[in-house]
């Protein structure tokens, strides 16, 4: 298993953002993470990459216990992520942004090698025309691509994608889904949070669903889509089941 979460919980004061979450992710899979707003999806990513350590439970990455390790340690081990709210390094150029990923992430490249990797990666995500611009001058769709390029330039083993499709138009979504597939084909395991249903149903091998910090469903996209608990979480209880219950 590349990633194993064992009974992970995280609370903020009295709020239980995550309770007893157990997930395993084998190498080479695309795992989708669904859940209504506030279900704890981003918190789960923060727990995995060390931004906020779990209150209880363990996280294992590549067979090692990484619970409580700082984010940079996980990055060095081959974990990379994008942020739901993009975090470009505004005053640096697009190329420099991506070089940071290549220099300090999984492969710890030298500056010269990182420049080459940055150019390749920017071409891959379709940002090559913006290479010398300041990252702050990009539009939202471009910043999303930049986030992705930065994460990819580290050549990670596991990529956490936090809503890379949010805010994109249908054409951009199509292009991004294609990029995600290509990343998987290069052997990178992907764990992705997404609200754009048809996209995540299409691209995921398996899906897990969170609600109020608990795992309520797990399975293939078809299984999850027909799971009554998932339907209830998203649409509310139907009058029939309410009467029956």
């Amino acid at each position, binding site marked *: 298993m590349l990633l194993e979460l064992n009974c992970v919980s995280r609370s903020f004061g009295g709020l239980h953002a995550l309770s007893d979450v157990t997930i395993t992710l084998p190498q080479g899979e695309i795992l989708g993470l669904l859940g209504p707003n506030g279900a704890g999806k981003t918190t789960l990513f923060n727990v995995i*990459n060390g*931004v906020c350590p779990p209150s209880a439970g363990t996280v294992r990455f590549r067979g090692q216990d990484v619970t409580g390790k*700082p*984010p*940079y340690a996980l*990055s*060095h081990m081959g974990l*990379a*992520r994008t*942020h739901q709210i993009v*975090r*470009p*390094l*505004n*005053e*640096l150029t697009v190329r*420099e942004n991506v*070089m*940071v*990923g290549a*220099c*300090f*992430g*999984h492969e*710890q490249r*030298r*500056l*010269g*090698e*990182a*420049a*080459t990797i940055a150019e390749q990666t920017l071409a891959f995500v379709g940002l090559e025309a913006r290479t010398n611009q300041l990252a702050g001058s990009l539009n939202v769709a471009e910043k999303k691509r930049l986030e992705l390029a*930065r994460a990819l330039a*580290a050549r990670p083993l596991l990529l956490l994608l936090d809503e890379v499709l949010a805010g994109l138009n249908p054409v951009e979504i199509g292009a991004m889904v294609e990029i995600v597939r290509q990343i998987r084909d290069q052997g990178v395991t992907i764990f992705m949070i997404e609200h754009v249903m048809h996209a995540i149903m299409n691209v995921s091998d398996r899906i897990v669903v969170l609600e109020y910090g608990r795992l309520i469903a797990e399975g293939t996209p078809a299984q999850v889509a027909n799971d009554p608990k998932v339907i209830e979480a998203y649409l509310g209880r139907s009058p029939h089941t309410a009467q029956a219950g």
Partner: protein
Amino acid sequence: MKVVTAVQRAISTVSRVEIARWISPGLWLTLLAVAGFGAWPLVIGQASLRETLFTALLAIALASSLNIILGFTGYVSFGHVVFFGLGGYVGMLVLSKGAPLWVAMPLGGLAAGLLAYGLGAAILRLRGAYFTLATIGVNEAMRAFVNNFAPFGGATGISLKFTVYNDYGGAANALWLVYGLLLAVTLAAILLSYTVKTSKFGLGLMAIREDEDAAEVMGVVTPRAKTWAYVLSAIIPGIVGVIFFFKNGNIEPADAFRLQISIESIVMVMLGGQGTVIGAVLGAAGYQQLRSFLLTNPLVKDLQLAIAGGLLLLIVLFIPTGVVGLIRRKLPVLRKLLV
């Protein structure tokens, strides 16, 4: 065969970047200008010009080194003078015991670097205004400590015997020697600033400046990077402190830990353009020019600090990236030149 060509290509890319880094007209023009202006009094042998440029070089060295932590890493430190003062004290202590200047200078730099290393572990965890407040506290604490520290002479400080200068060809000769040394250290400070900025280490620092949490997620070992940035920025003022107080002949707490020097260093870096090598140099030179005008002008001679404060306010409000930053933004053509 394939592997060999791949390796060859990799090496050639690396060295291309490495070579390109050192073919920087902006860097060499700056070094040449500072060296040229700096060497002029040595050439014509004019002592009054030497004294004017001594203060200017001192300012450039302090601003360039402060820029490493302030401009590249984004941590506003009001404690830069602490390293200047401590370096000066350590240097004066060993000088007064008979050690030569070439031993005292590296010792001053070393002491400042060690202090930065220890301090860094404690206060670089703080962010933004909290870090800044802590650095002011450090300055006050250091002054109070030295005031009561017997080996440093307490409140009276340390004075050198006039005979010390005999080893350097007499006092008049020592002044020229000290000036030459300061010029060399200033050039080294500019070179250090450029080397840090264009290195992988520097890229990590700038990532921290832009978004420390994002940098950490991307793998920058932020505690280590920040500590080393702080240490590197402390070494130059440590060495400069030895030179300054050796020239001065005596050192006392009120002179060594003047908060005013820290504030003025910040104004210089912000004026020229934080985060650019040239900005720190131009800002220091420009501010010194302004300062000497204000000090000699009878109308405003007591208002020099008030004007510096007002200037800082105006910069932060209207040109937060400084003069060089402004030019870089307006004229992208010059971006390559204005390193």
